[in-house]
């Protein structure tokens, strides 16, 4: 072996392996998306005939207009735009509601000498074992008798009681130094002021993290919106897509292209939320020290 004068970065096996695994993972995630994109550019008939291919068609604009602005139902109100809107309201309401409720519950549990605080906490915690699907009938019954079917309240409120958020905020609040609480007490901050002036700003990284998780969770809700919304103008994207593909009218083909494109559009907001809040998340982590 002759020694080369130029120091060359040696390719190590582990680096190569890392890249192979990551590349495969990325392809595994991305290829279906690209397939959907391709399928939304070709006429619906071609999808039936040929299935996925490498042929890029000219139907993208058409499908986009149909997906966003054309109603698929009878009432003519469930356009892509209105469904996108409804999904946003559900996602944001869901996330914000869970965060507010979770923070306040955790605040009560951690900072107030409640009689059965620990018991209450574990009671909340065990509801993790009872997801919506288990209690869907009683929940529906209650929402129905409160007259909240086909309303945003009915869509959001039954979902926002969250053990997850309560648990994370509880852990976070317990790590806030006791001295800070005492300093605020001496500075004349009452319970409400302490919560708003000190705890909420301190929790902003936690809030960002929770928001990412909960928004995506709420955005992807399918079962509950299907139960609660029967009016077409209340449809959310996730259930609306299903409906577009389901409709067989006589000899008409389902509008695959339109459905596919709408599915792609439905992916974009959660991705944007994650990207946006991630930068914020990192900033918060590096700036504050406790």
């Amino acid at each position, binding site marked *: 072996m002759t020694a080369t004068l130029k120091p060359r970065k040696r390719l190590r096996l582990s680096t190569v392996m890392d890249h192979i695994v990551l590349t495969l993972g990325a392809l595994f995630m991305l290829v279906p998306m690209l397939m959907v994109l391709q399928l939304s550019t070709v006429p619906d008939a071609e999808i039936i005939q040929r299935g996925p291919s490498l042929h890029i068609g000219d139907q993208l604009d058409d499908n986009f207009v149909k997906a966003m602005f054309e109603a698929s139902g009878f009432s003519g109100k469930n356009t892509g735009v209105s469904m996108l809107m409804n999904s946003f309201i559900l996602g944001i309401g869901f996330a914000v509601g869970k965060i507010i409720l979770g923070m306040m519950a955790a605040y009560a549990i951690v900072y107030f000498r409640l009689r059965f605080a620990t018991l209450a906490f574990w009671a909340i915690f065990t509801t993790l074992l009872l997801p919506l699907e288990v209690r869907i009938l009683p929940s529906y019954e209650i929402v129905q008798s409160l007259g909240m079917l086909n309303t945003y309240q009915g869509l959001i409120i039954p979902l926002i009681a969250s053990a997850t958020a309560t648990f994370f905020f509880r852990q976070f609040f317990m790590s806030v*130094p006791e*001295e*800070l609480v*005492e*300093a*605020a*007490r*001496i*500075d*004349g*901050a*009452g319970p409400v*002021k302490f919560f708003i*002036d*000190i705890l909420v*700003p*301190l929790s*902003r990284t936690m809030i960002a993290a929770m928001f990412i998780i909960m928004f995506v969770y709420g955005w992807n809700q399918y079962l509950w919106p299907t139960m609660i919304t029967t009016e077409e103008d209340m449809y959310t994207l996730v259930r609306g897509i299903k409906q577009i593909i389901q409709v067989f009218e006589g000899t008409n083909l389902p509008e695959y292209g339109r459905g596919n494109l709408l599915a792609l559009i439905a992916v974009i907001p959660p991705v944007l939320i994650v990207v946006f809040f991630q930068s914020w998340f990192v900033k918060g982590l590096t*700036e*504050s*020290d*406790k």
Partner: protein
Amino acid sequence: MAVVHFDAVQKVYPNGFEAVKPASFYIEDGEFVVLVGPSGCGKSTMLRMIAGLEEISNGVLQIGDRVVNDIDPADRDIAMVFQNYALYPHMSVRNNIGYGLKNRAVPRDVIAAKVDEAAKMLNLSDYLDRKPSQLSGGQRQRVAMGRAIVRDPALFLFDEPLSNLDAKLRNQMRIEIKALQRRLGVTSVYVTHDQVEAMTMADRIIVMNGGVIEQIGTPSEIYQSPASTFVASFMGAPPMNLLEVTRADTGLRLADQILPLDLPDTGAELILGIRPEDIIPDPNGPFSIMVDIVEELGAHRLLHGRLGDQSVTVHVPKDYTVAEGVLRFAMPIEVLSFFDAASGQRVSR
């Protein structure tokens, strides 16, 4: 400005632990009082009872002419400086200092003026828009002080405020705090476990041990006539030498020598206390110690050795040359302290 009056104030925790045994004392207006003692002695609990962060189990606490037992910390007209500064990490220095005033609905321009004044006093003017994380330890400590000053309270409370600073900064801040307190004339209670801080800063020291007040006095009283063996060994570095003595017909026997002293014979065993610097090396002195170790401290030397089978420390000036081995010395009788060996309490002569 206020006086603080403790009347049999006691703290018992729900589990039955008595953190502070009933304590009665009086803090004068404008006085700087230091509570000192080892960890777990109840000094912090005492301070937190004054602050209102800890409930008072029994007794009456008065600040000024108000009984404050049931008054909220915010309404006691006190300000507190915490060990870890307890600055609000998300607020700028300006907001940190002004937060207490803002909560008391002080007009905005008054807050701004007071914050600027406090910042000037503490050399923080250039840092008002920074976050606490962008400040050094000493600066954070100053912000915590600023937060206390702007409130113009009747009473300052300090909970080991310097224990997180390095030695050099600590000396500097010690002087700054003392000077500031002098200038503002606010009654202050300062908790520390560092006896040097206690000696240098206090007008009066309260020495605590195991929830009991061992002694209250000026630094020189505490140093020169400690009320118990605990105070004698806790205050002063190196601590007072405590030597067992036995009674003899003509006085007290220490090692082979008789000290010609006439103490009232109560039949109790006695302990003799002498400060290391009160032991005078003297070639013709009656006592001799075996010096094992010479500690060189620059300004002076410490000799550690044995007198009979008891260990002794001697403090000698730097120009006094010593070697390990036998050292003869004398003890001026008038500087000696005596304690009851059983109770540890001082025996008057």
